């Protein structure tokens, strides 16, 4: 079942060629991937149909403007796509899609996912301020060597940067210059990839080794960075310091692929109260920062979505106040996911912790009252 083909061309050129020829050969009716906007130096996801593919296709943009997972929720809200659709996803977007499928937020029928070795992306603001052509070239280079200088916080410490969960996975690391390797991981992927011409890759070991080495390096960096961040934000005062620049604009929630609720609890009337209630809190607390409950908003998101947080960093890109939201959620996510030994996006058959339980677990959460009484 596992087939691997050599695709000619430099990284982004190779992926573009592969997608175009798969669609042309009838592997899929439509394509959901990034393309350049009319201005040329910014990128968005586009839904495209066979026969009318734009010539601006740019499936590996150096920025992540919005998570594709959130858009797939939007796209398939009323039912699956009617024909086979190739969907190009970054590894973090792919994990988010897996989470959303478990939560019944994405109809995955007919989707054929394509993912790749992702070196990370630039922060949106840096990209828009910088010279697009230069940054795109830097990103192209990074695709081959796996490290992107100036990448976003979470990208720099991402240890799950390959498309191994996708139907078709594109390898750029550890492959000869001027080509990339397409590997079909599933039957659906093999059907699509089988239509494309290309020499078979016999021995995948050079890529496996390169990926393994990069993964180990990133895992160490991740651990160290999160540890440093944990020391920086430990204790309520320090957390408040990091979060007090927050404008309470809820942008992070809006762009978060995992935050799928139609109405957010934090935008509901639950937080409306009479002025004298606010005044009472102000008196008790040496002043009440307004809008109130800003920290609670973040604590709430931590408890609602951090178990499924895939560390995609969309929140931080959307933050107008430069709050390190993505590191915060990576840190808290690691610890809440740790309670359940849960890795978001690992396996679609692994249930989300909040929708599942074991009869015998977390006995330490129940106060040891019975035992105490037994001793009396």
């Amino acid at each position, binding site marked *: 079942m596992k087939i691997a083909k050599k695709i000619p061309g430099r990284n982004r050129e190779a992926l573009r060629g592969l997608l175009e020829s798969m669609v042309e050969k009838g592997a899929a009716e439509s394509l959901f991937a990034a393309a350049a906007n009319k201005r040329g130096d910014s990128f968005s996801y586009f839904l495209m149909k066979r026969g009318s593919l734009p010539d601006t296709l740019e499936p590996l943009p150096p920025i992540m403007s919005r998570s594709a997972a959130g858009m797939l929720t939007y796209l398939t809200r009323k039912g699956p796509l009617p024909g086979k659709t190739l969907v190009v996803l970054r590894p973090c977007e792919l994990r988010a899609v897996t989470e959303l499928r478990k939560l019944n937020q994405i109809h995955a029928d007919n989707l054929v996912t394509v993912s790749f070795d992702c070196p990370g992306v630039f922060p949106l603001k840096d990209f828009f301020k910088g010279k697009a052509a230069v940054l795109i070239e830097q990103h192209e280079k990074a695709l081959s060597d796996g490290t992107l200088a100036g990448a976003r916080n979470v990208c720099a410490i991402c240890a799950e940067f390959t498309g191994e969960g996708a139907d078709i996975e594109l390898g750029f690391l550890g492959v000869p210059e001027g080509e990339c390797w397409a590997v079909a991981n599933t039957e659906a992927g093999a059907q699509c990839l089988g239509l494309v011409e290309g020499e078979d890759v016999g021995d995948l070991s050079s890529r496996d080794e390169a990926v393994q080495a990069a993964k180990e390096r990133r895992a160490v960096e991740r651990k160290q960075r999160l540890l440093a961040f944990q020391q920086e934000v*430990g*204790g*309520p*005062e*320090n*957390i*408040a310091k990091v*979060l*007090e620049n*927050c404008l309470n604009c809820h942008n992070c929630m809006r762009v978060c692929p995992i935050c799928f609720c139609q109405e957010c*609890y934090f935008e509901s009337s639950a937080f409306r109260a009479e002025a004298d209630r606010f005044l009472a*809190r102000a008196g*008790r*607390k*040496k*002043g*009440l*920062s307004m809008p109130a*409950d*800003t*920290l*609670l908003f973040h*604590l*709430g998101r*931590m*408890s*609602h979505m*951090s*178990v499924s947080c895939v560390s995609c960093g969309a929140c931080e890109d959307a933050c107008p106040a430069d709050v390190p939201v993505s590191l915060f959620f990576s*840190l*808290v996510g690691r*610890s*809440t996911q740790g*309670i*359940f030994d849960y890795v978001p996006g690992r396996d679609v058959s692994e249930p989300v*912790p*909040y929708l599942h*339980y*074991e*009869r015998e*677990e*977390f006995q330490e*959460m*129940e*106060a040891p*009252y019975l035992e*105490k*009484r037994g001793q009396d």
Partner: protein
Amino acid sequence: MSGKRKKIVAFLCNWCTYTAADLAGTSRLKYEPDIRILRVMCSSRVDPVFILKALMDGADGVLVGGCELGDCHYQRGNYYARRKVAVAKKIAADMGLDPERIRLSWISASDGPRFAEVVNEFTREIEEKGDTPVKHEAYV
């Protein structure tokens, strides 16, 4: 009991722990009055946010009460509640709040005396801990 009263917010499930509280009252059992009871239909209704909100706002302790495992009125609610409390405790700990200020207890509807004992025991624990450090601090 000496000193100033503490503030303990208690989320009690309608079918068991709240009924036990009712029974404790009608049986004229005495228990510490530091507790403020909120009735919820099921312990799994208690979102970790409720617990964290109470703690951030200066509650000295939070008690979540539900039916005994296997006796949930909605079959499985208390199993989910246990997971939610686990998350709330974890986040509280990560935020530097004392997770032992959160307590989960199963008290069945017929066990009024046990309700009184749990409240007394938890109040004692909280008194030993003293006021929560965030009580008078302004946080964003």
